[in-house]
């Protein structure tokens, strides 16, 4: 136990990040079940409106800040040094500090549920004045702010660490243009974190000052400005969406290439697309603020439309990678294909919402809820499971059941679409989000019933996933060093890797050093070399 609490090895830190984020995923998932149970039928009164507000606030906060975003950083912690042939992260102690800032911060956010007045109840974006002390006087809101401040500081430190590691600790021959796409995506993500998280830390600090130190940043009666809160929040908030998706684009690229038995199609274009997405994402923040009437709709609409272009490039390259490949439908590949389908739906509704006339109509409706769940659930979450099934043998040295994994995929895919697809129609029929109940009009009862049934199918799928993991540790079928025929350096070391990662490294002369080494060995065996 002490070994883990004091660990500075990047692999242990990565594992602790990922396990803790999965714990928060389960917490957020249970909260989602409360939401869906309350909305299963019209006019239900299972939880009070105040409790409901706390539940959806903690659900959103936990999913975004405590699961999807930090899981990517946890995986990066584990993989990046392995993929570039480094013995560890550049700053191991700083790395451990980031992890513990995240864990303490996460529990601080959740601890709000235990204090008088309950947890924060002003939504994951906690707009002022709703989050100001006049409206949200409870300590839960303060704990939410303190916790997220710690999480944001930890994320900034992790980004600095990852960038330094990637720039300075690459193995001989591992030039930047030979790095795996996942590592490139982490460079783009780290850059985004460094630009987006300081405004988050600032707005949280300003809110805390308003609440306790006599500040008036967001109090219009004292000359403050509530729209300023929205500017600061979304200057962080939209890049955050890409912080929650770019690492997962990296996972998908790695998985698709390996299971298509082809090199990545359009390596350079994929890298450039990642940076185009990262850059453009810094200029789209106020498309979340169209309905304030206080922003330049044309500018933010244009930049939001533009971001679809590099995203389309990525899709084109994934399809190009699969084209005429020898595709193997393993569990990671199934999740990658599920990702593409779901993310495409989320992306298309995103382009629709980038148009102000549509946004004015659909804003704050369940259409928006469907959109972002298709992006972050159907996209990021599917990619996370693709990554888990892909790298689990490397991380723990044991195999997950492929047969049960495929069952898990289909159950999860079915549950996900059953839950979230009807929400598009709910939104178009006028159901606003964040409401504790709704009248029995239009098809809302049927659609909500379907969504609730879907949520319980997802829960069943997650239970199955837990069972698959437990079974793997119980049966302990040892994983070979390279169970999938991988391309990148992490497959050149043992499963799990030793302390400081490598006993020996292959020569690096392309972006697929392990593939090259395998080919060279084959040629040598055939006497060709």
């Amino acid at each position, binding site marked *: 136990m002490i070994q883990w609490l004091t660990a500075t090895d990047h692999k242990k830190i990565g594992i602790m990040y990922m396990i803790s984020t999965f714990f928060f995923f389960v917490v957020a998932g249970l909260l989602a079940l409360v939401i869906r149970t309350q909305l299963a039928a019209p006019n239900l009164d299972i939880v009070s409106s105040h409790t409901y507000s706390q539940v959806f606030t903690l659900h959103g906060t936990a999913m975004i800040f405590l699961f999807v975003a930090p899981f990517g950083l946890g995986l990066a912690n584990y993989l990046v040094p392995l993929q570039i042939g480094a013995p560890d992260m550049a700053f191991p102690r700083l790395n451990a500090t980031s992890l513990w800032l995240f864990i303490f911060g996460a529990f601080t956010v959740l601890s709000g549920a235990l204090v008088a007045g309950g947890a924060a109840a002003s939504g994951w974006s906690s707009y002022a004045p709703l989050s100001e002390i006049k409206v949200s006087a409870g300590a839960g809101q303060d704990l939410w702010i303190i916790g997220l401040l*710690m999480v944001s500081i930890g994320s900034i430190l992790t980004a600095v660490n990852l960038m330094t590691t990637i720039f300075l600790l*690459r*193995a001989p021959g591992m030039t930047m243009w030979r790095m795996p796409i996942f590592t490139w995506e982490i460079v783009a993500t780290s850059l985004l974190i460094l630009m987006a998280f300081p405004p988050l830390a600032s707005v949280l600090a300003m809110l805390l000052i308003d609440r306790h130190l006599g500040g008036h940043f967001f109090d219009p009666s004292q000359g403050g400005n509530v729209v300023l809160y929205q500017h600061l929040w979304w200057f962080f908030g939209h890049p955050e969406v890409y912080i929650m998706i770019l690492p997962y684009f990296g996972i998908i690229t790695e998985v698709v290439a390996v299971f298509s038995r082809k090199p990545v199609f359009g390596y350079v274009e994929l890298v450039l697309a990642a*940076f185009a997405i990262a850059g453009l994402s810094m200029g789209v923040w106020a498309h979340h603020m169209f309905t304030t009437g206080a922003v330049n709709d044309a500018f933010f609409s244009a930049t939001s439309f533009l971001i679809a272009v590099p995203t389309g490039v990525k899709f084109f390259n994934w399809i190009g990678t699969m084209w005429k490949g020898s595709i193997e439908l393993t569990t990671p590949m199934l999740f990658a294909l599920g990702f593409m389908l779901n993310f495409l739906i989320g992306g298309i509704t995103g382009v629709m919402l980038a148009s102000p006339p549509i946004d004015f109509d659909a804003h704050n409706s369940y259409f928006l809820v469907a959109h972002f769940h298709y992006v972050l659930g159907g996209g990021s979450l599917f990619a996370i499971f693709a990554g888990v099934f892909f790298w689990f043998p490397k991380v723990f040295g044991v195999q997950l059941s492929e047969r049960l994994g495929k069952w898990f995929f289909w159950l999860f895919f079915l549950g996900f679409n059953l839950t979230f697809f009807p929400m598009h129609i709910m939104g178009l029929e006028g159901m606003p989000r964040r409401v504790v109940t709704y009248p029995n009009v239009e098809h809302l009862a049927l659609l909500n019933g379907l969504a609730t049934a879907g949520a319980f199918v997802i829960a069943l799928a997650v239970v199955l996933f837990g069972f698959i993991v437990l079974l793997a540790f119980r049966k302990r079928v040892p994983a070979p060093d390279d169970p999938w025929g991988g391309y990148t350096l992490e497959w050149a070391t043992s499963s799990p890797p030793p302390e400081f990662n490598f006993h020996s490294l292959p020569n690096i002369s392309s972006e697929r050093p392990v593939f090259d080494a395998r080919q060279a060995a084959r040629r040598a065996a055939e006497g060709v070399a």
Partner: protein
Amino acid sequence: MKTFVALFLSSAAFGIAIAVVYNITSHELAGTFLLGIMASALVFAASYAILAERDADLDGDRKDERVGEAAGEDLGIFTTSSVWPILMAFSVLIFLIGAVWVPFLLFAGLAAMLLILWRLGAESNRTGGRGIT
């Protein structure tokens, strides 16, 4: 390192361009200020990258470098355990709780952070590491 420099230079150029375009098209102060700060930070990082690149001589940047040729290169010592990171994170929590509710804890947290920084430095020097990280 050339790619590293190009990355920051192009990001800085993009940051300046988008800040200027936004200001011209929107005449809105909050967004212009945020984009301006972002662009300034990127210019600062790009300037540092240019300076750092002059002295850089990394094996990872050489296309034809074979793994064996760099054998024995000193990368420094990577620590495998330290008690200070978890204590540092806990001190930050105490500091923030103190800032909101109990002023005494604010000073206790701050003192603990300074003490831990000092001990981290000492530990790092003892193990031959680089600074407190």
